[in-house]
């Protein structure tokens, strides 16, 4: 009897632990000034990641001043009242750390990864950024040049580099998603220093930020340090501008040709998606994996291996807060007419819409998703980012522990249904990317 109990207990422990392994434990609190703080303790490695997510992206910009949010991602490394110009990166590196940042249509995210005894430094650096960053003429001019180079390197000089901006501008008629985070150089050139300072005052405020600390920390000591450096930062005075614009449903296809510095034509299709926290997001994500995830996926097998009409095909759901786009692109194989490739892509979409997917493929899909979700939380840096997004985008930090449940609710029928509902051939954007040499001279 005792033996059985022990065994039962053991079994219980085992099954519990295999369930618990995926659970991310965390603590959170909010300061009086509105700053939301999330902590996750993991003492296995003496490192700590400190990140701040500012809930500002290109969609919060004035349509006459696009590119501001991304520009700030650069400007915010210029220094602060107490940190000399250009020293931000140097300070972190000389204490053994690394750092980075990115900007999307919805958010701007900064993080430092340091040895755990440098947590106070990281909090100090981030609080300096939030309290009194340098937003002055010199910094603006320096970073304008850097952003120009970035623009050249990543968009203008990069084959197919303009796919995102060119697609967005057609996929949205009214919503500010119609411009990409890189924005307009003219807008940045025209902006006055007062406008930059106002943007900082409006969006770089504690009530628009989420501070996440993950790694080798002590919860109480960390909370104390956070309070020390962030409590004095005043709350923003103005209401934070969040666009409340519903993009009208497209009823006709938008079709265009872009001439780029490329040799091989590409076909791009874009379909509007529901808001990121909509239940159909999971089925759509699985649909994209079914279509192009891995060498045995439907389109890769059919179009790249068998028919050899495409060098590569990819379906990427760009999930955004107010509803993103499902972008599909195919780069044609030598000598293949883009029209020909497009026809085949459409046939396969229609095949999923009409016939759905097999049980075998559905099981494989679930295994692939599970592997991806499990691996998504393998580093403290990844966990911090997932925690912050869970809170800001999904409204609940514990969402990080529920992702798998949402995916497991998706049925085979759901995948067919979302293919029908969202991949509407009549309400999409189709772009052909053709070599510049193919551009008619008269144009």
């Amino acid at each position, binding site marked *: 009897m005792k033996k059985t109990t022990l065994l039962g207990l053991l079994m219980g422990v085992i099954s519990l632990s295999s369930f618990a392994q995926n659970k991310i434990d965390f603590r959170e609190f909010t300061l009086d000034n509105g700053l939301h703080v999330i902590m996750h303790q993991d003492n296995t490695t003496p490192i700590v990641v400190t990140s701040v997510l500012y809930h500002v992206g290109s969609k919060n910009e004035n349509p006459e001043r696009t590119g501001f949010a991304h520009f700030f991602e650069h400007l915010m490394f210029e220094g602060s009242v107490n940190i000399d110009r250009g020293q931000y990166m140097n300070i972190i*590196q*000389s204490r053994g750390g690394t750092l980075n940042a990115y900007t999307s249509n919805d958010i701007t995210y900064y993080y430092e990864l340091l040895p755990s005894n440098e947590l106070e430094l990281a909090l100090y650096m981030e609080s300096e950024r939030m309290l009194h960053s340098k937003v002055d003429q010199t910094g603006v001019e320096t970073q304008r040049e850097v952003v120009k180079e970035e623009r050249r390197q990543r968009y203008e000089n990069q084959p197919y580099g303009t796919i995102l901006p060119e697609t967005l501008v057609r996929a949205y008629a009214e919503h500010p998603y119609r411009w990409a985070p890189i924005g307009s150089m003219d807008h940045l050139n025209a902006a006055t220093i007062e406008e930059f300072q106002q943007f900082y005052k409006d969006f770089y405020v504690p009530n628009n930020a989420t501070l996440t600390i993950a790694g080798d920390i002590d919860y109480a000591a960390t909370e104390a340090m956070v309070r*020390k450096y962030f409590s004095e930062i005043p709350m923003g005075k103005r209401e934070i501008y969040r666009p409340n614009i519903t993009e009208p449903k497209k009823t006709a296809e938008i079709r265009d040709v872009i001439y780029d510095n490329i040799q091989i034509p590409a076909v791009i299709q874009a379909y509007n998606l529901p808001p990121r926290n909509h239940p159909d997001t999971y089925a759509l994500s699985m649909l994209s994996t079914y279509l192009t995830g891995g060498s045995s996926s439907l389109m890769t097998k059919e179009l790249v291996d068998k028919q050899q009409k495409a060098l590569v095909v990819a379906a990427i759901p760009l999930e955004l807060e107010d509803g993103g786009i499902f972008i599909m692109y195919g780069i044609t*194989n030598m000598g293949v007419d883009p029209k020909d490739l497009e026809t085949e892509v459409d046939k396969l979409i229609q095949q999923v819409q009409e016939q759905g997917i097999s049980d075998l493929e559905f099981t494989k899909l679930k295994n692939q998703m599970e*592997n991806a979700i499990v691996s998504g939380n393998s580093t403290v840096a990844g966990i911090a980012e997932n925690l912050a997004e869970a809170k800001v985008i999904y409204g609940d930090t514990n969402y990080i522990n529920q992702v798998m449940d949402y995916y497991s609710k998706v049925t085979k029928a759901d995948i067919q249904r979302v293919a029908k509902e969202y991949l509407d051939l009549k309400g999409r954007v189709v772009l052909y990317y053709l070599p510049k040499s193919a551009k008619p001279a008269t144009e």
Partner: protein
Amino acid sequence: MKKLAISFVLTLFVALGLMAQVDRSKLPASGPAPEIKIKEAETFTLPNGLKVFVVNNTKLPRVSFTLVLERDPILEKDKAGMTGFVGEMMRGGTTNRSKDQLDQEIDFIGGSLSASSTSLFASSLKKHQSKILELMADVLYNPTFPQEELDKLKKQSLTGLAQSKDNPQAISSRLAAAVLYGKNHPYGEIETEETINNITVEDIKKYYQTYFKPNIAYLAIVGDMTKAEAEKVVNQYFGKWKKGEVPKFSYPMPTRAAKRAVALVDRSSSVQSVINVTQPVEMKIGDQDYISSRLLNQILGGGSASRLFMNLREDKGYTYGAYSSIGADKLVASISATASVRTEVTDSAVYEFIYEIKNLVENGVTQEELDKAKAELSGSFGRSLEQPGTVANFALNIERYKLPKDYYATYLQKLNSYTVEDINATAKRLIEPDKFIITTVGNGAEIKEKLAQFGEVIEFDNMGFPAKQLEAEADMTAEQVLENYLNALGGKDKVSAIKTAKISMDANVMGNKMSIAFVYDSENDRYGQKTSFGGNVMQKTALIDGKGSIVVQGQTIEMNEEQLAEAKLNSYLFPEAVYEKNGYTLTLDGLKDVEGTPAYKVIIAAPSGAKLINYYAQDSGLKIKYENPASGDTYYSDYQQKDGVLLPMTWTIKSPMIPMPLEAKVTTMELNVPVSDEDVK
């Protein structure tokens, strides 16, 4: 408990402290350095000699198995490249599963499985562990080495080799290996078309049978698995693996150059030079200078705050990045400092490299630099520990390099104990500034003479073999080269007698047929060219009535003046026969090595400024290459007689825009037939 109390006190203290202003004027000091606990791997050995390391990490329900073979490097000689095929061949099918079945079964569980000549790697979620182990064992014990898989791999490898001959980075690393270690060393021998074609399925089988033995193998298990479970599964899957005698090899230590020299590969289309200032070094993990050389390198060129980066990029703007490395290897490694720089500043950049290396050895490093390097390396060491695989690597290194058991446990202590004097002594011991080889891949005509100031300039070809010493005869002229060419074709009269030509060619592009058709009409200055795939015209060029047009995918573009000038120059089947009449100027730019054939390089320039660059073989006089930096190079071969004139029947086009050389063969050639405007259009 104690920890809790401290936190509580701390909270209280800080809360009280809040009343006072936070002093933001100075950076918070570092806390007490955290104790870096490096988990030890658990080990056990099977009776067949297989050594197993287990790093149990239950953070995620995943597990990985890495099998590593510890054998001496192999000199492959006339089969160089063979070991590169072993892994893919093992994954190419087993007695139980075809390659497609293997792929499908691995994908189905979301796992991965790969192999090389000295390793086998498999990983999956914990719950699919049995399946991935079953697949791993199948690949380990039952590979069938299908001939068609080898044929496919050889084809890919030859395509890769062809591409690499025009890739300056690839040329540079091949050259460095050859000059550092010599062709008769495993690290210096070079794969060629010939050695790849020599490889047989039997060679690979023999390799597999000789070296895949448990007594030279380590198995690292990382993830959700205890030692007890590991013992069970390892016995189950690897217990019956039979041991065997494995041959050992040793090689003489490569020596450094007696004095500084330059090894140059002339790549005339280059706009940048790839520079590598390098010398061999004896350096193994665990050596006296191993850790101090990490610090030394960090200061010289380890990152974006290093001396090389600050000097060559930030200060001079010669390059997008300049870095250095000091390798570590059981046999031999290299010290190397590299950058890709604009052609014009090649010699200036080499000068700065030499200055920085010399300065480092002679004047040493500063305390500030050392402190920063220590912080950077400690930080990255700490971050690396987040990956559980790091601990397995440590255990593996301790075994392979016979390191003290606490080598990694005390690594940071050791790292932080080095003084400026220690680093300076390491620099003096390891680096000999006057014995570097400076390898350079770039435009020889622009840089060769300027590089002579750094030492003897020895030329190599794009495969790392010494370039043939080529020098055009002193009395050779461009006019003479063209005359020889026309004579070789059959004489100027016969060539001039060809007024019109229609030529069709076919090429195979990834399984699709591409056709190219040319129409030449030199009397009426008409020219047409059409490229089509499977009957669909993709691109057309036409010159009629002094006007040029290009049609790409149905869109017509009128040529501008510049394009027209270049197109006109290209519109003659034999531009060599009309240069006098058209007022073109000729320049002979020496004798060059064209894929092993010495050839005269002649530049034909039109008054408009448009240029043709052609190469004529020294022995046969025939034109063998047409060079065009914008659109790619064309190689002519298989000359055959048509109407008394020799014409090339195979045109091989190499261009950065196409993934592999395009071999077009002439299918029809009609000379002196009537040509209409319709033919041209």
